[in-house]
């Protein structure tokens, strides 16, 4: 019995230690943030004389997309002398609150610049004001944030990407002699995120324009869970039967789930699946003919350019305020 008490005590001590170290570091950094902006900029300046510290904050570490953004930024750091990059993020894109907390902590740690991919939307505005006050440059990637304190934004034009997805779906159906009628479903990653809203909006608008005979269901949100995306797809197949002619999955996790469910139902010939992004399972599904087209973003470039722009800003060079990093419409034949 004493042994177990000892274990429990040890565990709680470890927890307490972890708590101490994090709180002491924030205490050390907090006064800097409270000081006047001018002083803080002076403090930031000597750091720039040494290596340029760039913090890259990604939306979720469980996503191949965001890992590639991080790798792009690391590739820039590896090629460039005097630039250090650290990549951090919450485990899942759905952890919006965690990503905000992480951003706050990173600002307190005082890097020279932050390359930020965040779902936090307006929640990030006030936090980014703190970054500006601390003299930290911010470059956003993928998702724009409503903040005056962002120096540059690098992203896929998601609305245009959604339009390309609709065009690809219609092109595939036309080329394979499938009538442009029936029901199309959208399996959407998360609700209330601008990137996803734009991707779905572009798809819905374009589909209505070029294939008015097809009806598009409201997006079904799956909390970015592959399992939920699968279940949703299974239910859609059962509910709509042969009327269901197409499914649009608007990111990598929804693409994985939709492809798995369609393949298991043996419906790859009856349902035209078009998806965003390119993680390993999606590429396998594309090669197997389950997914017909992938709308692939250049996330490596997004991370690379993000780090490059951040470094340029720290050096006092000017950068463009918005860059479309582009998408690639990829068919199985392109692999």
């Amino acid at each position, binding site marked *: *019995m004493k042994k*177990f*008490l000892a*274990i*429990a005590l040890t565990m709680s001590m470890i927890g307490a230690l972890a708590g101490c170290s994090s709180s002491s570091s924030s205490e050390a950094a907090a006064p800097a943030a409270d000081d006047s902006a001018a002083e803080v900029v002076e403090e930031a300046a000597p750091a720039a004389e040494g290596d340029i510290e760039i913090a890259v904050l990604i939306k979720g*570490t*469980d996503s*191949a997309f965001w*890992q590639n953004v991080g790798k792009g930024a690391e590739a820039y750091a590896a090629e460039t002398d005097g630039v250090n990059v650290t990549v951090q993020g919450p*485990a*899942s894109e*759905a952890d919006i609150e965690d990503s905000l907390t992480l951003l706050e902590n990173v600002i307190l740690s005082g890097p020279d610049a932050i390359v930020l991919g965040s779902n936090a939307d307006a929640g990030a505005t006030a936090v980014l004001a703190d970054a500006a006050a601390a003299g930290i440059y911010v470059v956003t990637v993928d998702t724009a944030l409503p903040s005056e304190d962002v120096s540059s934004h690098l992203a896929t034009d998601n609305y245009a990407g959604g339009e390309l997805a609709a065009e690809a779906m219609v092109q595939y159906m036309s080329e394979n002699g499938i009538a442009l009628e029936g029901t199309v479903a959208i399996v959407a990653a998360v*609700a209330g995120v601008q990137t996803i809203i734009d991707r779905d909006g572009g798809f819905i608008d374009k589909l209505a324009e070029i294939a008015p005979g097809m009806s598009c*269901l*409201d997006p*079904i*949100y799956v909390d970015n*869970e*592959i*399992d939920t995306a*699968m*279940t*949703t797809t*299974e*239910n*859609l*197949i*059962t*509910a709509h*039967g042969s009327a269901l002619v197409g499914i649009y999955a608007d990111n990598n996790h929804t693409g*994985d789930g939709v492809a*798995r469910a369609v393949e*298991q139902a043996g419906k790859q010939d009856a349902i035209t699946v078009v998806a965003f992004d390119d*993680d*390993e*399972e999606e590429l396998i599904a594309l090669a197997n003919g389950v997914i017909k087209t992938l709308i692939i973003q250049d996330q490596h470039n997004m991370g690379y350019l993000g780090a490059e722009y951040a470094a340029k800003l720290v050096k006092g060079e000017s950068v463009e305020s918005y860059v479309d990093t582009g998408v690639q419409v990829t068919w199985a034949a392109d692999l």
Partner: protein
Amino acid sequence: MKTKTKTPNDGTQMSTFKRLRSMPEFNLVLIWLVFTIALSVINPTFISAGNVTNLLRSTAIVGILAIGMTFVIITGGIDLSVGSTLAFSGMLAAILMDGGMGVAPAIIIGVVAGTLVGVIQGLIIHYGNVPAFIATLGGMAIIRGVVMLMSNANKVLVPSSVGQFAVLKLFGIPAMVYVWLVIVVVGIVIAKYTIFGRNVYAIGSDQEAARLSGIKISKNICYVYAFSAFCASVAGILMLTRLGSGTPTAGTSYEMDAVAAAVVGGASLSGAVGSVFGTVIGTVIIAMISNGGQLLGINSFILDIAVGALIVIAVFIDKKSKKGGR
């Protein structure tokens, strides 16, 4: 429908209806029947073999978690760590397979390691005198952290043969559903026909009285959390076969789905009340709302509201009818 309800002690003959009415799960089965009939009338696809298959397959994982959770709740405890334990067993098995271990040993190690997590939590709860809510809340975070550390928060792909199990069907029913069924039968047997099962109810009813009557509380508490973790580990392996990869965020918030299923199924968070059969019906009713809702094309946010309302209403009706019956 067969009923095994015994005639009351006073020996008076009851009508079939009255006997059914006296079953604790009567209201629940009624709600389930009403839902099934209503959904089938509105959309006949609901009752089709294809949809019933979908429904059962998508319910199997939470269904298994909920069986373990039922036993925990009957003792008056709660296990918030099951979602993390699910991810842990699946990820451990995936990493072992990725490292070249055979599928069967990897799965066994995953389940055994996951079950040990429950044993440790049971020991902390009993010997450390830490409330179950706190111990498993901490456990939830610790185990999830371990999963992230193990996997570096990446997905770990497993051989495609592992994924075959999720699509395997016997007599038209997905293999995953049989696993759920086995756990359900094991649960019913434990609850009704073993000393351990009776002890679980006794501990939930009055721990002090149970101790005085000679029940070893520590052993039984450990068994209960071990069984819950075992269920979570089995569910984790099923999730692994379904997704075809060890997924670090798998099972996030599933602990709440499991608690909801048990509560809708009539289990009381204050202990001593609950049944495996009730939990199964509870799980299926909750799953029917999202499945039926998607069939009818109902907005997914409205379905969230409906599930929440059901949890509250189910408990309300249960309390009301029991008061009236006495």
